[in-house]
């Protein structure tokens, strides 16, 4: 340990009450930033999971025109041989599963009443393994008319439909009821299929619950005569972190007229919430760093004013002005390191305690169900807060340090 570091450590320990108060400010700032960072991480992960397991997968493959524009609900710009492409991609070593989908729209009728819908046709067996559909059905069962809900049968002969909870409510239909799906085929002809309602789904958003329904690919084939074409191929990767890199490669593997996009580029809600949270976190962080800066600068300045004669003595015996500045920087560094370390330790303890309470948070704006508070431990946030506070303490030590370094020795020695 260098002479200055040792001297700084002794000085920090000298006035324990003042050091304690300074540490409290740093600890509070560290905890606020680390806890809010952990909460944000939980939110981001929740939103990412919702987007990926809600149907996007890690990579979406589709016709380039569909990626660009507004043809998402027709087969005009579908992957023509989607099933064959899906089978080919399943052989790729990076791919865990490929989930083909048909997106379609039309009218849903119970006889006297018809309602417009947006439909998704999926492979019931594969979808249930990799997507959150079972959760959606389980939650749907809790809603009005949702009792007895189950997921779609993998039997190709089954003509079944799962309705968004709001869509079922608007038609006054419950599980076990019969409805008619009407849509146009790939060639533009009007077609209809009778289906049985086997369950209600809760997508978490009212707008989706009011419009969305799910059927099997076999039912959709019958309705829209897709002939093997698929609107989307949702790819589940073995390593989700490689989504960005794998998207263009998998599109190339899929063949001509297929474009690929990683899930985050398609999850606009995720991106918007992330930006909003980062802005809030950034602003809060700025305020907290400012509070720590002012509080610690004040403490260090007071400490300098009390030690003027001592500094005069140190300068008299040969301490250079730069070394005096370094001494104050060391004191700031020790306070910052100690405060951040204690703050992180307390954050981890508080996080464990709060998470153990299994607190339920209210539904976020636009969604229909709440979630359990589970603050994440994010090492990068902790490291960032630690380094940020070190920088803050260095800044706060700068002014008192410069003041000490610029002292006239004879004046400092006269100070009582």
């Amino acid at each position: 340990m260098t002479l200055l570091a040792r001297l700084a450590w002794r000085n920090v320990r000298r006035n324990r009450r003042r050091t304690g108060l300074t540490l409290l400010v740093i600890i509070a700032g560290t905890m606020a930033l680390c806890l809010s960072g952990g909460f944000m991480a939980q939110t981001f992960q929740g939103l990412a999971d919702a987007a990926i397991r809600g149907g996007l997968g890690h990579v979406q493959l589709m016709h380039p025109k569909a990626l660009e524009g507004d043809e998402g609900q027709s087969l005009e710009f579908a992957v023509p041989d989607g099933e064959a492409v899906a089978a080919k991609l399943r052989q790729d070593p990076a791919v865990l599963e490929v989930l083909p989908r048909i997106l379609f729209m039309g009218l849903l009728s119970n006889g006297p009443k018809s309602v417009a819908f947006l439909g998704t046709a999926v492979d019931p067996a594969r979808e249930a393994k990799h997507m959150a559909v079972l959760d959606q059905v389980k939650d749907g069962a809790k809603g009005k008319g949702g009792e007895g809900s189950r997921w779609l049968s993998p039997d190709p002969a089954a003509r079944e439909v799962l309705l968004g909870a709001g869509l079922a409510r608007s038609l006054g239909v419950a599980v076990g009821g019969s409805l008619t799906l009407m849509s146009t085929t790939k060639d533009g002809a009007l077609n209809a299929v009778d289906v049985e309602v086997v369950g209600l789904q809760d997508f978490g958003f009212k707008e989706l619950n009011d419009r969305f329904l799910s059927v099997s690919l076999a039912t959709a084939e019958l309705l829209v005569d897709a002939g093997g074409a698929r609107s989307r191929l949702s790819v589940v990767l073995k390593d989700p972190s490689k989504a960005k890199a794998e998207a263009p490669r998998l599109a190339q593997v899929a063949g001509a007229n297929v474009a690929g996009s990683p899930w985050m580029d398609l999850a606009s809600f995720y991106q918007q919430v992330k930006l909003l949270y980062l802005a809030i976190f950034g602003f809060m962080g700025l305020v907290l760093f400012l509070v720590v800066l002012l509080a610690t600068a004040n403490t260090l300045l007071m400490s300098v004013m009390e030690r003027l004669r001592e500094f005069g003595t140190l300068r008299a015996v040969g301490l250079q002005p730069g070394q005096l500045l370094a001494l104050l920087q060391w004191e700031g560094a020790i306070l910052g390191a100690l405060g951040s370390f204690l703050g992180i330790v307390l954050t981890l303890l508080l996080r464990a305690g709060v998470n153990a309470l299994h607190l339920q948070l209210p539904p976020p704006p636009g969604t229909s169900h709440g979630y359990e508070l589970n603050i994440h431990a994010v090492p990068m946030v902790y490291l960032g807060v630690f380094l940020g506070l070190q920088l803050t303490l260095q800044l706060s030590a700068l002014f008192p340090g410069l003041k000490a370094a610029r002292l006239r020795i004879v004046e400092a020695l006269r100070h009582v």
Partner: protein
Amino acid sequence: MLDIRNITRAYELGGEKAGVFGISLSVAAGKLAVLAGPSGSGKTTLLQLAGLLDSPDEGEVRLEGEAVSALPERQRCDLRLRKLGFVFQAFNLVPVLDAVENVMLPLQLQGRSDSEARKLAAAALDRVGLTDRLHHLPGQLSGGQQQRVAIARALAPEPKLVLADEPTASLDHAHGGPLMALMKALCAERGLSFLVASHDPSVIATADVVFRLSDGLLTGTEVRP
């Protein structure tokens, strides 16, 4: 060793002009010189100028023949560290360092290793009779013991000149006498020079040379055989 040539340093004190005016004096190697005079006569100001703690308005300070008072602060600081030692009236020990660490401080600033600095500091404290107080903090030492630590701190780096401002003012006669005897002995043993500001007659009595100051002016020089 030390030559002060026609030095002037003026400042305002309570609306009146104070300081030192046109003073010249010399202190030879191995001599104990005393700046004598009443309070406000300019003793401390002159000592600070000689110790390169302040800069003169006019005149110059020469150390071992080299003009040093106009050097940049970095070089003056280095000269203080390597050639000068200071003993202050109020001891001015660093309160968070124990006796041996206080004495080690200038040695470490000189770049000596911890072990070497500790060895030299212990020897310096032994020289002033504080072998059994190495690890006492200043607050745990008496005034006399603190002053001896301050002297050890000034002596340990082996300076050429030690500047002492009223070194006996905080001590009773029982401690003041041995302190001056120690200074005299060091002059003889090491060829070390002392410039001491004091109005204590017992200090003045031990001096090889006495410079009498009054109202910032040198009014007399008394050289003892």
